């Protein structure tokens, strides 16, 4: 959510500029759009430049073997851009869209083609993380093909101190509570939980809730919750809220106490884990994007594998359903040309990320991906959390209507954590804010 929120905002700023640039490019006559013009297959994506370069490099090799030509263009804020471009009739052959909701709206606009017969769905069902194909399915047809992903259901910890203290990765949510209690009885503070994020304050809390709802309610309840087929304050959600309340508001659980949660910038969360005199707090639940120079102390980022430990957010019950929540980019076919279909097929191959993985934060959604290609142990651990999960779920609040997903859900959770209301009031308020139409 953090990432898409950023994209959303930069999109506004850069939309005009990129629109101009793209119009100019189209006028320049390079035949960027439309598909059947015999030119190269165009792919638009908003991924990081390093990822784009890596995919282009691998794709060039594969495309040459297949006898087609493929050109990737990096655009800003494709989730917004693609809709204006569809209206203008100036679309790429393939677009990588950041959310299932955007895929669905592109399908609704009639701009996408199903790919059930283009890619080998049976093989993909086997090779991809469970749930990846469901995320790209609209009205029982496959439209979106997950190409890259990120993972949110992670707990980071200071590896050296953690191992020295003899703590072990919890297998269930109860184990997690027990571990927190153990840390407390050893004189430590278990949780690094901070969420101030300017006008987007609240997304850290909604990420917590999503993970917990997926665990207490299971995949079906989670999906129903996101689409509002069950009330927002369903008993499973209340159970999730109770667990989160226990984590966040129990005396001594969070560094700085309850007030510090809403007041401290989310960017600061990881730093106290690496204090010189030992961790000031021990565990941080955040997404894979947190493994970056902006969020970690310099020495830690330089020695990731020795310093930073990462484990999956535990399941509700040992051996039970163990979903992960995350995000990713879904390739959507927007042209019927044979070349574009061929390119789509190439994008579905496991080794498409081989050049991107070693040099960027790219994580492949294919469980048979060669994990030795990831640049470090941390990324391998993050990937394996997703590969070993029972289901991959997209960030739910992104798919909720904006007045909830980027509105009341953030605001009510923030007000609750700030002590202005209790969790039941918060959930009831969010439920009543759900738009009727």
């Amino acid at each position: 959510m953090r990432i898409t929120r950023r994209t959303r905002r930069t999109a506004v700023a850069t939309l005009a500029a990129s629109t101009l640039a793209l119009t100019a490019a189209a006028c320049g006559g390079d035949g960027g759009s439309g598909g059947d013009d015999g030119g190269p297959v165009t792919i638009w994506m908003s991924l990081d430049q390093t990822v784009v370069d890596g995919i282009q490099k691998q794709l060039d090799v594969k495309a040459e073997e297949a006898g087609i030509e493929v050109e990737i263009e990096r655009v800003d804020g494709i989730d917004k851009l693609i809709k204006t471009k569809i209206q203008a009739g100036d679309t790429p052959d393939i677009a990588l869209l950041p959310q299932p909701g955007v895929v669905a709206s592109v399908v609704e606009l009639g701009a996408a083609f199903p790919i059930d017969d283009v890619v080998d769905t049976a093989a993909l069902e086997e090779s991809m993380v469970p749930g990846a194909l469901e995320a790209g399915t609209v009205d029982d047809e496959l439209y979106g093909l997950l190409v890259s992903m990120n993972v949110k259901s992670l707990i980071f910890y200071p590896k050296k101190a953690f191992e020295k203290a003899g703590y072990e990765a919890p297998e269930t949510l109860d184990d997690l509570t027990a571990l927190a209690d153990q840390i407390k009885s050893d004189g430590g503070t278990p949780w690094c939980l901070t969420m101030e994020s300017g006008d987007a304050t609240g997304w850290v809390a909604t990420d917590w809730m999503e993970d917990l709802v997926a665990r207490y309610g299971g995949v079906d309840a989670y999906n129903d919750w996101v689409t509002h087929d069950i009330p927002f304050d369903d008993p499973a959600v209340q159970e999730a809220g109770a667990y989160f309340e226990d984590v966040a508001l129990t005396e001594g659980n969070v560094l700085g106490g309850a007030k510090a949660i809403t007041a401290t910038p989310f960017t600061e969360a990881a730093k106290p884990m690496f204090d010189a005199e030992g961790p000031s707090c021990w565990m941080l639940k955040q997404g894979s994007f947190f493994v970056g120079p902006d969020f970690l102390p310099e020495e830690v980022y330089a020695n990731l594998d020795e310093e930073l430990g990462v484990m999956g957010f535990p399941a509700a019950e040992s051996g039970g359903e163990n979903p992960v929540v995350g995000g990713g980019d879904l390739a959507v076919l927007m042209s019927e040309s044979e070349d574009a279909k061929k390119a789509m097929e190439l994008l579905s191959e496991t080794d498409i990320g081989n050049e991107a993985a070693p040099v960027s934060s790219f994580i492949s959604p294919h469980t048979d991906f060669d994990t030795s290609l990831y640049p470090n142990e941390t990324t391998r651990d993050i990937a394996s959390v997703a590969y070993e999960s029972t289901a991959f779920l997209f960030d739910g609040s992104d798919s909720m209507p904006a007045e909830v997903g980027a509105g009341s859900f953030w605001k009510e959770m923030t007000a609750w954590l700030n002590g202005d209301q209790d969790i039941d009031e918060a959930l009831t308020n969010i439920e009543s804010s759900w738009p009727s139409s």
Partner: protein
Amino acid sequence: MLEKTLTAFVTVLAGVGAALALFWILNKVSELLPAKYEERLKPWFYILPAYAAIAIFVLYPAVQTVIYSFKTKVGFPAEDWVGLKNYQDLLGSDAFRGTLLNTLLWIAFVPAAVVVLGLLVAVLADRLATRGENAVKTLIFMPMAISMVGAAVVWGLVYDYRPPGRPQVGLLNGILDGFGAGPVAWLQENTLHFNSFLLMVMLLWMNVGFAMVLLSAAVKGVPTETLEAARIDGANERSVYFSVVLPQIKGTIVTVFITVLIGVMKVFDIVFVMTNGNFDTNIIGNEFYLQFFNNNNQGAAAAIAVMLMLAVIPIMIYQVRNFRAEEAAR
């Protein structure tokens, strides 16, 4: 580059040319009329484009907004007439009533504080030697040149919070830390709307300079003869100020007060950037933005705009009357 410059040049030429052509045609049309009417009607012909512009760009949207406020989800398939429902929903919700209360607090506090502080600076700076006066005024005026969002960055640093025991980055918490006191979560502390007042301080910081400039000019415009006469009559400095200076600059005070007041009613950026209305700091400018841009709830947003418009109109009328009275007195 050359192409762009040329395009810009041609656009400007065309714009100015079209305006000239329009007035030339209007002039010609008026000349076609009998001489008696020509003189009488020419001014109307000349002012017509301006009125047309106001009608298109102010009146039409205003009417449109009122219409939208009775609808829901304007521009979406779900668009529908809902009567007064938008108003009922807003006024019936605790959150919106809290938002209104906050807005009232801003209205009650900020304009008055701006005038008082601006006057204070103007009068005190007036007593300094020229160089000192200029230096003080420049300093006080400087925040005026900073954008609201820029100000939010500055004040974000002032109010920044880190948990106890962490190095405090924020100015205020840094000072507290220096005295050995624990950090305060300034913007989260909403007892008695404390955090709202902290946000108001930001607007004061930006507006006092504006008030000072106008009020200082007014203070300097007070004829010295009146002051001397009062002093010769034995008035002390306080009564000179309150009985001689203040009455003579009343017009400027009212103008400053109302300008700031209207600014306060529309305030949005400070709250949006600092808290986005969280922690009980919401005001209607921000609520409008959230309803319109975040919630796609154009009906509710329009209803808020209409309420704001209704609240501003009496003030505008007062201001126009006041202005006319001043002009007449001159």
